[in-house]
């Protein structure tokens, strides 16, 4: 009996680790970013576009905008394709086709970021630089927001598809069958029953994909150009927050405030991601419980 209690206690203590970890990540990053806030006010740092660490100017606005541009581009490209793919898998595909499709999507989900980045350099950069940019009458090196958006879209596609398939498959079969029995076509079943029932769930799946896109690092920094200027079009280079961190963190220069500025960038990124990720996740959890 005593032994049993001891094991319970150990397991209980281990289960507190995720809580401690989550809190300590926020606290540590915030305390390390704090020194900069005593030098300048938060809004000046967030909304100033001047990034000149040597002169003590740490405006994060270009990086924040870069992150948003790239993410939104990826989202717009990925969401429709993912939803259509998910509908096909959940409501149209035969059992045998599903057996092929699901592993393919899973493999796509499992490929490392750096592989996508390499693929982007090999194919998407020339495609955008040589063909798409001239098509729109502008010049681009190919290392730009659109390229990063395309690469990122492919990367978040599996997340959105997998979660959407789960949501769509949860729609009760008898509802669909009833509609089919009344003479509805498959499209009508999807439109008026499946999507009507699962629209918030599919939206949550998309938001979850969006939150993944915010934090994606290597693949994006390999193709986005990394120029700390406010982006003006899809064909201009950008410098998202994760790339800023990846390129500059670790080699701390002895510039006052520089280290804190990078930590603040991490905090900003963390908050951007967590808000979306948590909102989507909590909604999906609730949905799951309703199904159980």
């Amino acid at each position, binding site marked *: 009996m005593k032994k*049993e209690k001891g094991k*319970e206690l150990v*397991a209980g203590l*281990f*289960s*507190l*680790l*995720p809580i401690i*970890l*989550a*809190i300590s*990540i926020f606290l*540590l*990053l915030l305390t390390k970013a704090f020194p900069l806030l005593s030098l300048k006010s938060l809004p000046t740092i967030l909304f100033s576009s001047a990034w000149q660490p040597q002169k003590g100017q740490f405006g994060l606005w270009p990086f924040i905008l870069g992150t948003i541009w790239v993410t939104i581009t990826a989202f717009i490209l990925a969401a*429709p394709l993912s939803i*259509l793919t998910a*509908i*096909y*898998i959940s409501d*149209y595909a035969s059992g045998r086709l599903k057996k092929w499709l699901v*592993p*393919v999507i*899973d*493999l*796509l989900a*499992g*490929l*490392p*970021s*750096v*592989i996508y980045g*390499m*693929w982007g*350099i090999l*194919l998407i950069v020339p495609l955008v630089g040589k063909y798409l940019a001239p098509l729109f009458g502008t010049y681009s090196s190919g290392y730009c927001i659109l390229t990063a958006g395309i690469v990122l879209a*492919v990367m978040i596609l599996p997340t959105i598809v997998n979660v959407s398939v789960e949501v769509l498959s949860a729609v009760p079969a008898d509802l669909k069958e009833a509609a089919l029995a009344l003479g509805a*076509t*498959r499209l*009508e079943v999807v439109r008026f029953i499946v999507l009507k029932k699962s629209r918030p769930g599919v939206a949550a799946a998309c938001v979850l994909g969006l*939150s993944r896109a915010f*934090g*994606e*690092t*290597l693949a994006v920094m*390999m193709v986005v150009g990394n120029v700390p200027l406010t982006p003006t079009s899809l064909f201009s280079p950008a410098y998202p927050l*994760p790339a800023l961190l*990846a390129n500059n*963190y*670790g080699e701390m220069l002895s510039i006052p405030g520089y280290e804190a500025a*990078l*930590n603040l960038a*991490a905090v900003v*990124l*963390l908050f951007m991601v*967590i808000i*979306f*990720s*948590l909102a989507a*996740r909590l909604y999906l*959890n609730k949905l799951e419980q309703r199904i159980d």
Partner: protein
Amino acid sequence: MGSRQKSTDRRLRRRHRAEAGFKLILLASIILVAIILSIILVTILWKSLPALKLSMILQTPGTGYYLGKKGGILNAIVGSLEVSLGATLIALVIALPTVIYLNTYLKRKSFLAEVIRLSLDVLWGIPSIVYGVFGFLLMLMLHLRASLLAGMITIALVELPILSRALDETIRLVPAELKEASYALGGNRWQTSTRVVLRQALPGLITSILIALGRGLGDGASVLFTAGYTDRITTSLFQPVATLPLAIFFQLNSPFPEVQERAFASAAILTLLILIISLLTRYFGRKLSRHKVR
């Protein structure tokens, strides 16, 4: 009567046309996804062929390797395996008791269970680059250098929420009747969870571990500041360690075409490793569904 019949006919035809059109759009999107994946795989394989020699996986970088001279990336292959296996072990040591505690000791709706699941959801959302930053700050606090140990810890942090989530889902699928049967035979909660629940969930357990391992193997952003890089094979926890994603990243930035080709070859090797893990995951996943108790 006739005109009414005609309008119904027309409506029916329109509905069928819409159905056919939608099906076409769906097919187009699925084909596009398939094409994208094949293009990625084919590009990597095709580009890697010139440099894909046996020496790539059998040798460490020799002198002048980064100028295009002889050598391979054995250091990164071994390093990546060391880091990801160690990290998966650390993550498992934390995740397994957590998930057992969540599922057998706590009530589903209890406050503590909700808070633990919430923190796991928060951790799940944190990007790996932020884990890298956190790992680096932790490293400074513990007076560690960029090393295998630091890399392992950081990757373990990345893997922890993924592993916990997967484990939680598998263990939750274990039928309540099985647990009740164990309790009825006088088994206590610890015995029930380790000897009945875990055994029933074993294929799922392995699948979850493999998923986490795959993530650890491919994650480059989190080891960027914590694992360092070395041309030698790492033999101690406190030495820096090379990893495949960073090997690809660094070689790709080289101005020498020979070195760039080796980046492609390294990418093919990493992809192959991920593919093997993915296939193993499917194999155990199928096993899991075969043993389902109804």
